[in-house]
């Protein structure tokens, strides 16, 4: 018989396991890798988590609701390229500006969000209205999205975004660039929405059991469609931030981030079966991957090990998830 205090402690550890792992990894790296233990490096880890972290919000929401979205990486690249083409000054950039200049920030953001929302709405139409499989629909969107990036840019890059946008990457608060704060705030806002609002609770219910959710009076289709549009818009936000970080866009921008995002989401404790997951946990997963990447950047380890380690971590995360279920069953 497990005492209630001990049970509560075990539950707490299980719920926040990824944070404990992150802490252990950071301590381990700080002790063993020269130059790792410094505020600047930790700020870099947070900065590098910006894009995968933002993408992971939308992906988590959809997976929690019981769906897949493979298109997010292409949506991010597409939004970045559209912003680059419109606002960058060199390459394929047209260098549009506005008076007053600060309007560039909200207008470019609105454009990036709209690009994402349009693709999200298209995904929603096929999945919700036509009842097509979300994996296949978003896979198609992933492919045509990348194709559209190449077609729009002609394979060329758009470079040199105006300083009104670049300041988000250059200016810092507590050593962390403003754009990374945007990702953190977005995570907190959506964590609140997921856990403290009817929308979030309904999403968890849909992911857990869509039939039961429907019978409980939840507008499953409408909520699912909204989530697809949200996920697209959030990917658009990630693209906007990525363009700002790299001061423009190249046709291969963000290649491979989809898999990192999936890895982070799984490591962060989101169940691929739907209905389970928390955004702070996902953010910890993102930080964990970024801290390993940074360690590899600082060590003499060949880069090939990055993917090996990340793949291994996903397996470990799934294994831990299974173990957690077993422990919880025994506690119940």
């Amino acid at each position, binding site marked *: 018989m497990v005492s209630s205090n001990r049970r509560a402690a075990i539950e707490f550890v299980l719920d926040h396991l990824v944070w404990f792992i992150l802490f252990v990894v950071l301590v381990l790296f700080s002790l063993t890798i020269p130059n790792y233990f410094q505020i600047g490096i930790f700020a870099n880890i947070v900065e590098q988590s910006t894009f995968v972290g933002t993408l992971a919000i939308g992906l988590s929401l959809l997976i929690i609701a019981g769906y897949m979205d493979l298109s997010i990486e292409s949506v991010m690249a597409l939004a970045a390229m559209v912003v680059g083409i419109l606002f960058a000054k060199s390459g394929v950039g047209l260098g549009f500006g506005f008076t007053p200049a600060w309007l560039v920030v909200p207008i470019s953001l609105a454009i990036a969000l709209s690009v994402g929302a349009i693709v999200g709405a298209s995904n929603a139409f096929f999945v919700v209205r036509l009842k097509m499989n979300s994996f296949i629909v978003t896979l198609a969107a992933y492919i045509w999205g990348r194709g559209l990036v190449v077609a729009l840019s002609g394979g060329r890059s758009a470079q040199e975004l105006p300083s009104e946008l670049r300041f988000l*990457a250059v200016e810092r608060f507590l050593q962390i660039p403003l754009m990374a704060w945007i990702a953190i705030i977005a995570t907190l806002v959506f964590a609140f929405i997921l856990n403290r609002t009817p929308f979030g609770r309904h999403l968890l219910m849909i992911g857990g059991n869509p039939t039961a959710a429907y019978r409980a009076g939840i507008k499953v289709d409408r909520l699912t469609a909204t989530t697809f549009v949200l996920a697209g818009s959030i990917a658009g936000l990630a693209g906007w931030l990525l363009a700002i970080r790299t001061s423009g866009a190249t046709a291969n921008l963000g290649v491979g981030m989809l898999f990192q995002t999936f890895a982070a989401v799984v490591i962060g404790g989101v169940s691929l079966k739907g209905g389970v997951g928390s955004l702070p946990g996902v953010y910890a997963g993102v930080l964990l991957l970024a801290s390993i990447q940074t360690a590899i950047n600082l060590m003499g380890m060949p880069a090939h090990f990055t993917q090996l380690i990340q793949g291994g971590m996903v397996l470990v995360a799934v294994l831990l998830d299974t173990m957690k279920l077993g422990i919880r069953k025994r506690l119940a």
Partner: protein
Amino acid sequence: MKRLMGVLAGAVVLGAATFLTPAAWAADKGKVYYLVPTLLDEFQTGSVTAITKFMKDVGYETVALNADNKTDVQQGQMNDVIALKPSAIVLAAVDFNALKPQIEAARAAGIPVMQFDRQITSTKSDLTSVAGTVEIGHVAAAEIERLLKEKNGSVKGKVLQVLGDPGDPYTLDIQKGFEEKLKAFPDVTIISKPAMQWEASNAGSIVADQLLANPDIDLIFVHAAHLSVAAVASLEAAGKKPGDVLLVSSNGAPVGLDLIRKGWQQVEVEQPLFAQAAALAMFADKVVNKQEIKPGTYDVLGLEGVVTNEEWGPNIKIPGAAITKANVDDPRFWGNMKTPEAPVKSVE
């Protein structure tokens, strides 16, 4: 309904006949298929424009097929193109070794194969036109030697080398050339890190991390200009000003030239894209007609191309140039995106 179907079928047959009739498509001397490895960077897209233009100058129509950086896709394209029996194939291989069977199959079918930009030495080709990636490393090393000497009084200091994807022999060759030249200077420390998948934000992260771990970095050498843009973004975010950390890049893309103009970058080592493409067109007739290509020096768009007979066939190597603030506006550099207007002439 039957009638409608009949009309539709007739229209399709008529359209296909018009579309596929050789007279509708064939240029004077036939088609050349250019198998481009990817269209995700300016060099590759520029190569399509340049090869199409120069081949047209000498009477060939060019059809470009993009392999999206996938070896299996390019192998399939080669097989398809062999079945179409074109006048020649121009191949910029995704993978240096994996395309060997297809090259041999094409040549066995009587279709000459020309290699563009990426040298395949494991089998014979009918012509290879390259800048010499190892040589690009050599040129970069010489420029870096000069820059370090100007900065530190002698050839010493810390260099961060940002490679492209470690699976791409192009970047490994540059690294090889660069490091073998700098071996002569033991006071130069080189830190090498690859930007996976040639992705700019990966390069930015490497620079950001290394600036903290090694704040005394004197110079950053990146293997592609689009990566140098991300490197500059990280330098800027770290509060650096143009010239605080020296920057050298390779391939000669427009963005690299812009960074030189703005003072962020000191040198761009060019891959002579126009000349490499023009060399193919100059010798296309000889290749198609299976005539001998004589070794020697040839003027290729004002650059000195040297043809040698190698084990893998005739090979023309055109040296890459170092671009600095002094010559950055020279229109012969492909990064200035002015494809030479004068027509290329076939070598007699």
